[in-house]
C-alpha cells in the first residue's frame, strides 16, 4: 500500500523554500525562465528570476537566494497583464487556505518583448487539463458507454460487473483502468460516475465490508478525502484488479503525467542549473524569521482571512460581516 508523496507544488503558496523544494519533482518540467523580474509586492527593488514549470511559478532573488516564492497554479482567481506606466506587470491573485495572496511581478527591462506570455499560456494549459489531476464526480465522462479519453491517456483494462457500494443496494457498473486514472460508471446512468486520478489516490486496500471483501480507494485530503468502496466478484478477480491498479499507481508515481503540455520554441536550461546553490550558513537561522514572509503578499491589507458572510437587510445581499462599530452606510460614505 503506497502513499504518494502529497503533491503540494500546484496547490500551495510557499515562501522561503529549501533548495530541496526548489527542485522539480518527477513529472514536473521547467518551461520558461525569465530574468530581471522584480517581485514588486514583497521584495521591491530586488532583481530576481521567475521560473515557470508545468505546476508552479517560482521566483527567487538573485542577490539573496534565501528569498523565494513558490506559487501554486491551481485556481488562481485571476492573472492578467496590467500596464503601469511604461512597464508591464504580471498580476496574480490567488487563494490558499482561505488566505488571498496578491503578487505583482514587474519586468525591470522596459519594453522587453518577451514578457509573461509563457506564464499565461502555461496557466491556460493547466486550467484546461484538470481532468488529469482532479477527482471528479458525476461529470460528462462517458459517451456511448465508452470512456472519453484524454490526449495522453490509454485504457489498460476494462472490468465489468463492478459494484459501487456508496448506496444501500449498490450500483452495478464498469471500471476503466488507464495510465492516468481509474473511472467507474453506473451501467444504468452514465451521469453517475467517478474519475480518480492516481495523483489523488491516498491508498488502495482490500477491506471487509458489509457486502463482503471490497476494494477501498481513499482519495487524498485535498480532493475531499473520499472513501470509495467497490465490490468485484469473484474474489480472485478482485485481487487481480487490485494488483493491477497498485502496479499502475507505482508506475505513475515514478513518472506522473500532469497533462500540462506546453512547448517552448527555445528550451531553457534545466531548473537545477538555474537554481542558485544555497550556501550553508554557519549560524542557525531561527525558523521563526520565516513565518511572516507571506504577510507582504496579502491581497487585502493585513487580513489573513475574510470574515464570514452574513445577510444584510440593508442591501438585501450577503456581505462580509462588519467589524464592530462599523456600518455599511458609514463605510460607503467614507468612500464617496
Amino acid at each position, binding site marked *: 500500500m503506497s502513499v504518494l508523496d502529497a503533491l503540494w507544488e500546484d496547490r500551495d503558496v510557499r515562501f522561503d523554500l529549501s533548495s530541496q523544494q526548489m527542485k522539480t519533482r518527477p513529472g514536473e518540467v521547467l518551461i520558461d525562465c525569465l530574468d530581471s523580474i522584480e517581485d514588486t509586492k514583497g521584495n521591491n527593488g530586488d532583481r530576481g528570476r521567475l521560473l515557470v514549470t508545468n505546476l508552479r511559478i517560482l521566483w527567487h532573488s538573485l542577490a539573496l537566494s534565501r528569498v523565494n516564492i513558490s506559487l501554486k497554479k491551481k485556481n488562481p482567481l485571476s492573472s492578467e497583464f496590467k500596464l503601469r506606466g511604461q*512597464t508591464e506587470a504580471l498580476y496574480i491573485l490567488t487563494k490558499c487556505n482561505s488566505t488571498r495572496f496578491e503578487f505583482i511581478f514587474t519586468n525591470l527591462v522596459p519594453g522587453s518583448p518577451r514578457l509573461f506570455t509563457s506564464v499565461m499560456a502555461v496557466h491556460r494549459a493547466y486550467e484546461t487539463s484538470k481532468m488529469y489531476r482532479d477527482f471528479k464526480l*458525476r461529470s460528462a465522462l462517458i459517451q456511448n458507454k465508452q470512456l472519453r479519453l484524454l490526449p495522453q491517456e490509454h485504457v489498460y483494462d476494462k472490468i465489468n460487473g463492478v459494484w459501487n457500494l*456508496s448506496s444501500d443496494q449498490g450500483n452495478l457498473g464498469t471500471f476503466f483502468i488507464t495510465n492516468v486514472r481509474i473511472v467507474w460508471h453506473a451501467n444504468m446512468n452514465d451521469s453517475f460516475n467517478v474519475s480518480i486520478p492516481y495523483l489523488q489516490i491516498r491508498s488502495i486496500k482490500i477491506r471487509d465490508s458489509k457486502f463482503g471483501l471490497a476494494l477501498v480507494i481513499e482519495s487524498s485530503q485535498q480532493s*475531499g478525502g473520499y472513501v*470509495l468502496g467497490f465490490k468485484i466478484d469473484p474474489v480472485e478477480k478482485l485481487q487481480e484488479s487490485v494488483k493491477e491498479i497498485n502496479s499502475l499507481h507505482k508506475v505513475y508515481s515514478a513518472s506522473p503525467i500532469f497533462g500540462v503540455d506546453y512547448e517552448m520554441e527555445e528550451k531553457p536550461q534545466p531548473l537545477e542549473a538555474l537554481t542558485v546553490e544555497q550556501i550553508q550558513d554557519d549560524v542557525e537561522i531561527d525558523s521563526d524569521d520565516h513565518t511572516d514572509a507571506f504577510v507582504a503578499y496579502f491581497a487585502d491589507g493585513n487580513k489573513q482571512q475574510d470574515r*464570514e458572510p452574513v*445577510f444584510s437587510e440593508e442591501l438585501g445581499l450577503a456581505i462580509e460581516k462588519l467589524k464592530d462599530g462599523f456600518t*455599511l452606510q458609514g463605510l460607503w460614505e467614507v468612500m*464617496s
Partner: protein
Amino acid sequence: MSLFKARDWWSTILGDKEEFDQGCLCLANVDNSGNGQDKIIVGSFMGYLRIFSPHPAKTGDGAQAEDLLLEVDLRDPVLQVEVGKFVSGTEMLHLAVLHSRKLCVYSVSGTLGNVEHGNQYQMKLMYEHNLQRTACNMTYGSFGGIKGRDLICIQSMDGMLMVFEQESYAFGRFLPGFLLPGPLAYSSRTDSFITVSSCRQVESYKYQVLAFATDADKRQETEQQKLGSGKRLVVDWTLNIGEQALDICIVSFNQSASSVFVLGERNFFCLKDNGQIRFMKKLDWSPSCFLPYCSVSEGTINTLIANHNNMLHIYQDVTLKWATQLPHIPVAVRVGCLHDLKGVIVTLSDDGHLQCSYLGTDPSLFQAPNVESRELNYDELDVEMKELQKIIKDINKSQGVWPMTEREDDLNVSVVVSPNFDSVSQATDVEVGTDLVPSVTVKVMLQNRVILQKAKLSVYVQPPLELTCDQFTFEFMNRNPDGIPRVIQCKFRLPLKLICLPGQPSKTASHKITIDTNKSPVSLLSLFPGFASQSDDDQVNVMGFHFLGGARVTLLASKTSQRYRIQSEQFEDLWLITNELILRLQEYFEKQGVKDFACSFSGSMPLQEYFELIDHHFELRINGEKLEELLSERAVQFRAIQRRLLARFKDKTPAPLQHLDTLLDGTYKQVIALADAVEENQGNLFQSFTRLKSATHLVILLIGLWQKLSADQVAILEAAFLPLQEDTQELGWEETVDAAISHLLKTCLSKSSKEQALNLNSQLNIPKDTSQLKKHITLLCDRLAKGGRLCLSTDAAAPQTMVMPGGCTTIPESDLEERSVEQDSTELFTNRRHLTAETPRPEVSPLQGVSE
C-alpha cells in the same frame, strides 16, 4: 481600483475554451429537493449542461468534486436555460433548454446514496419541440392568466414569436417592422410581451392580441386572398429609448406595481406597466448585465448592474448604494439562497468563471509603487542635481537662453574664394546675350573642436547668382553639450570680375555723381587692377565698365582735385561702381597706413531720379492690380458661359447654341491674353523692383556720405528703406517704407514732442499715389540736413527692438550686420532673366554658413 472587492464564497472554472452568454445561467431548485435549496444551472455554447449545488465547508474554498450534481453533453449549443412548471399535470419544476433549433424540457431527479458521493442524478427528457426557425431567446410565464403552469414563448432570429403550450405548439406571430431580435420578457400583470425593437423603442404586445392576430403561417395566404379574418397585430404601447437594449426584466415585489426594467447600452430605465418612464439613470460605463433583485424599502427596487470594468454596482432606484470589484466581467448575474446563505451573488463570465460571492467590507488600499521611483541612488542624484543647478546658474548669468557670446572653439567657418574662374564654366546658362557667364569655386571650411550633432551648412547668394549646391548636412556622433541650436554666419565677397568686364569709357552720360575725398587721387589702375581697357598708363584717370548684359558705367578720376565722378545712362547703375570705388579706396588707404581718409558727397540729393523709379514701380503695381481684376472678371464670365452651355447640352430637347460657343471662345482668348499680360507685368515689376532697390542703396549711400552718418545710422536707414520681406501685390515696398519713414520722422527726427504721439495704422494698404511717400522722403532728407540724428536706442519712446507696423523689424544689432549692409549688393537682381536688361553686377555676395 475599487476600494471594496467581492469575496468569493465559492467558485469554479467551467470546461475548457467554452463560451457562455446572458441566458446560460439560471438559479432554481431544479431537482425539486425537499430542502428547497437553489441549484446553479449553467449551459454553454459548447453544449454542456452543468448543475451545481455549492456547499463550501469553509468560506472561499474551491469547488469540491461533490458540488457538481450533474454534467451532460447535450451536443447542441445551449442558448438559454429556464426552470418552470413546463410539464402538464404536475407543478414540479422542470428544466427547459433552448437550442438553436430545438426546445427540450427535462426533469432532473436525484437519488440519494449513503454518502455524498453516492448521490446520483439523472436527467430525463420529457418532451422536445423541433423548431422551424432558428431561435434567439425565450421567455416563460402564465400566458393568458393560466394557473399552475408555465407556457413558453420563443423569439426566432427572423422575428416570429412562437408560443408553446407545454407539449403542444400553440401559434406563431411575426412582429411588425422586425429587423433584429432584442431581449424579450413577459409581464404577467398586463399579460403582454415586452421587447426592444430595432427602432430602438420598447414595444409591448398583448398576449390576447397576439393570439387573435392573423396566423403567421397563413399570413401570406390571407394577404393574397384579402380575407381579413385575422386582426392585424398592433402594438399596445411603445416608448422610444434611443438605444439598443441588453436586457429586460419585469419585476414586482411585495405586491407593489410591477416595473419594467430595461438595460440599455448607456442608460438604465425603469418603466411603469403602461410604458411611462418611472426613472432613468445615465451610466458612466458600459454595462454588461443587470438584475433587479429585491425591494428593501417600500416603493424602491434594488438593482445589480455589472459593467465591463469588472465592477458590480448596487442601486436603490437611482441611488448608488454600493460598488464592488469582481475578478471577471460577468455576462449574467443572479442572486440566490445557497447552502442556507441568503443573498449570494452568482456571476458567470463569458469564458466560464462561475463565482458565488458576497460583498467584502474591508477597503483595499494597496497601490503598487511606481517603478520609476524606486532603486534610488542618492549619491548619483546629488551629483546630477548639482550639475543641473550649475547649468541653470550659468544660463541665468549669461542673460537669456541663447548663448550670445560665440565660442570660437566650437565651430569655425571660413571661406576661400579661388582667385581664378573655373576653366570650364559651371553655370547652367552659359551665355547671356553675347557674353559668356563665368563661374568661380568657393571653398567653405568648417573647423570644430567639440563633436557636434547634425551640423547643417547652407550657402546663400542673391538670386541672379547661382549655386551648384546650397545645402550640406553633416551627421556627427555626439550630442551638443547644451542642446541649444546655434548659428554661426560668415560673409564673403565674390570678385567683381564675375559679373563685370572692362569696357569702353564714354564721355557723356545723363546721370553723374561726384564723390569728394580728402586725399590726393589714386590711380584707377591700382584700384581696379585688371580693368584697364588700354595698355598706356596716361589714360588711368578714365575707366569703363561693362556689365554682363550690356550696360556701361564710366569712372573718372580728377587729375587735379580730389574728386571722382561716376556716370552712366541709368541712375540705378551707378550704385555698384560707386560702392565698389569707396570700398576699394578705403582698403587702399588702409594698406597705406592712412587713417583719416574720408569720402563725402556735396551735391544735392538726386531725389528726382529716385522718385521716377518709385513712380515707375508703383505704376506697375497698380497696373498689375487692374489686370488681375480684369482677369477675375473674365474668368467669372467664362464660367457663366460654360454653365449655360452645359445646361444647353444637358437639355433633352436640343436648342440652338445661340453663338454661346463663339462667346466662350472669345472669352477664352481674352482670359489667355490677360493672363499673359499679368505674367509680363509681373516680370516688369520684378525688374523695376530690382532697379528700385539698387537706386535705394545708392540713395542711402549718398545720404550717408552727405551727412557723414555713422555706421549705426546707416543701418537704421537701411532697415527703413529695405524691408526684408518680399515685394508683393498685397504688401508692397511703398507702404512698408512709408510706414517705417513716418515712424522715424515721428520718433527720432521729430521736431517737437507733439509729433511723437504714435498713431500707427494696424494695417498697411496699397496707397493711392506715391506723393505721401515722396513727401516723407524729402522731409527725412531735410531733417537730416538740419542736423537730425538717427538713433533708436536713446529714444525713450522707441525701444530698440521696435516692430514696425506690418511686421518689418529694424535689425541693426551687430558688426556682422553692418558689414553686410555695405556689402549686400547682389539684391540688385533677383532673377537671371533680368540680367540681359539690367546691368549692374556686384562683386560681393553674402554667404552664410549656418551650423547647429
